[in-house]
Structure formats: structure tokens, C-alpha cells
């Protein structure tokens, strides 16, 4: 096996970090909504931060971020950041795919085109010559 190459196992781990990160993101959005503050200015920053800290969803989100962190560190110990980071965009493809398969949502042609470009980009990036250690 070439050192630094993106194997199927590493791609699986990257997808896993994406899932954890997406779940964290949803909880974070919930936490922001529950503060009841909209269009926060720099002057309101301290009050906004304080009000975020007491929102339960913020801590659920942090938990999922911690899971994401553990897997991500394992990924980074194996591959270059300039390969792992772009490969993380596979989430933009998985979400529309899952919405069609399980939620029977209509996914527009433009969205499929975008997903295809992303897949092509990930293939390019992961085929780039790995660093020799």
C-alpha cells in the first residue's frame, strides 16, 4: 500500500466525520435559534456568547463535534490535509443522494450536476500523488 494514499477505509472515516459534523451543525443552528437573537452585531457579541452557553443543543453539538474530532485526528495521521480536507466535501453529495433514496425528495438537475462536479473533484484530489514519507 502506498503511504498517504486515500484507501476505502480512510474515505469511510472521512464520511463518518462528515456525518458527525452535519449533526453537530444542526444542533448548533438550533442553539442559535433558541437564543432568540437575530442579526447579531459585534457589540452584542458578549451577550450572544453568554446566551449560547446555556443552550442545551450547543452541548449536544459539542458532543458530536468531539466524535468528529477523534475520527478526524485518525484521518490526519494517515493523509495530507490538502487531500483530506477537500475529500470531506463528499457530504454535499451524500445528502441529496439520501434525500432522493429515503425521503423521495425531488433533487434538481442543477444539484445533481453540482454533486457530479464534487465527486469528480474528490477523485482528482485523492488520485494526486501521495507524499512519500
Amino acid at each position: 500500500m502506498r503511504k498517504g494514499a486515500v484507501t476505502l477505509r480512510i474515505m469511510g472515516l472521512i464520511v463518518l466525520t462528515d456525518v458527525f459534523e452535519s449533526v453537530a451543525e444542526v444542533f448548533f443552528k438550533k442553539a442559535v435559534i433558541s437564543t432568540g437573537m437575530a442579526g447579531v452585531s459585534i457589540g452584542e457579541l458578549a451577550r450572544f456568547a453568554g446566551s449560547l452557553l446555556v443552550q442545551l443543543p450547543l452541548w449536544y453539538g459539542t458532543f458530536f463535534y468531539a466524535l468528529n474530532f477523534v475520527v478526524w485526528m485518525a484521518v490526519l495521521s494517515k493523509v495530507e490535509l490538502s487531500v483530506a480536507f477537500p475529500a470531506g466535501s463528499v457530504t454535499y453529495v451524500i445528502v441529496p443522494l439520501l434525500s432522493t433514496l429515503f425521503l423521495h425528495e425531488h433533487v434538481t438537475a442543477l444539484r445533481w450536476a453540482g454533486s457530479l462536479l464534487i465527486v469528480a473533484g474528490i477523485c482528482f484530489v485523492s488520485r494526486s500523488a501521495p507524499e512519500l514519507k
Partner: protein
Amino acid sequence: MNIYYFFLIVVHEGFSTAEQVLLKKSADALSPGGLAGAGQYARFFIRVMRSPLVWLAFLMTGLAWLIWFIVLSGVELSVAMPFDSIQYLMILAVCRICLKERLDVMKVAGTLLIICGIILVSAS
């Protein structure tokens, strides 16, 4: 979306990019010769949690989130997403400058394709 949020998105990306570089530097420094087996991974994570560099990265994460939350308080996610994809370029730059990773045509072209893809996905 006005310039205020665009500025915040860029600042958010800066913090988030710094976080990634610090994590990558830590992962490399703390896993000499690569990792194999559960025992090695467990010892790796003990070293990770004791590394000042990793805690600096957590500070960057906190700042990146805080700024991102302000963005989300005023802008729809689908509006913010295309601008957020600028971070892919930042990552390429710091990988070259700070981590001395090799950038070849495949990597750069692939990253540009991904950015175009994200813009299309979020436009639809």
C-alpha cells in the same frame, strides 16, 4: 447578504483553517511512523489531549464557531455556503506554505471542481 457577513465568513474561515493546520501538525508530530492497532491509537489520543498545540486548535475552533453562529443568526445557510467554500483555497495555500505539502495539478484542479460543485449545489 451584506459586506458585514461576508467579512465575518472570511474571518470564520481563517480561524477554521488555522485550526486544521494546528491539528495536522499535531497529528504528524504525535504519530511518528504511522499508527496501527487499537493500542497505538489509544496512546496517540492520550498524547493528542496533552498537546498544547491541540488546545490552541480548540481555541481556534471556539472562535470559528462563535463567528459562524453570528453569521447563522443573520444569513440563511444556503446563502452562506457558497462563500464558505473559499476556505478550500485557503487550505490549499496553508498546506503549501505551513505544512510544505506538495500541490500538483490534480489537487488544484480537483479543489476548483469541488468549489464549483458546492456553488451549484447551494444555488439549486
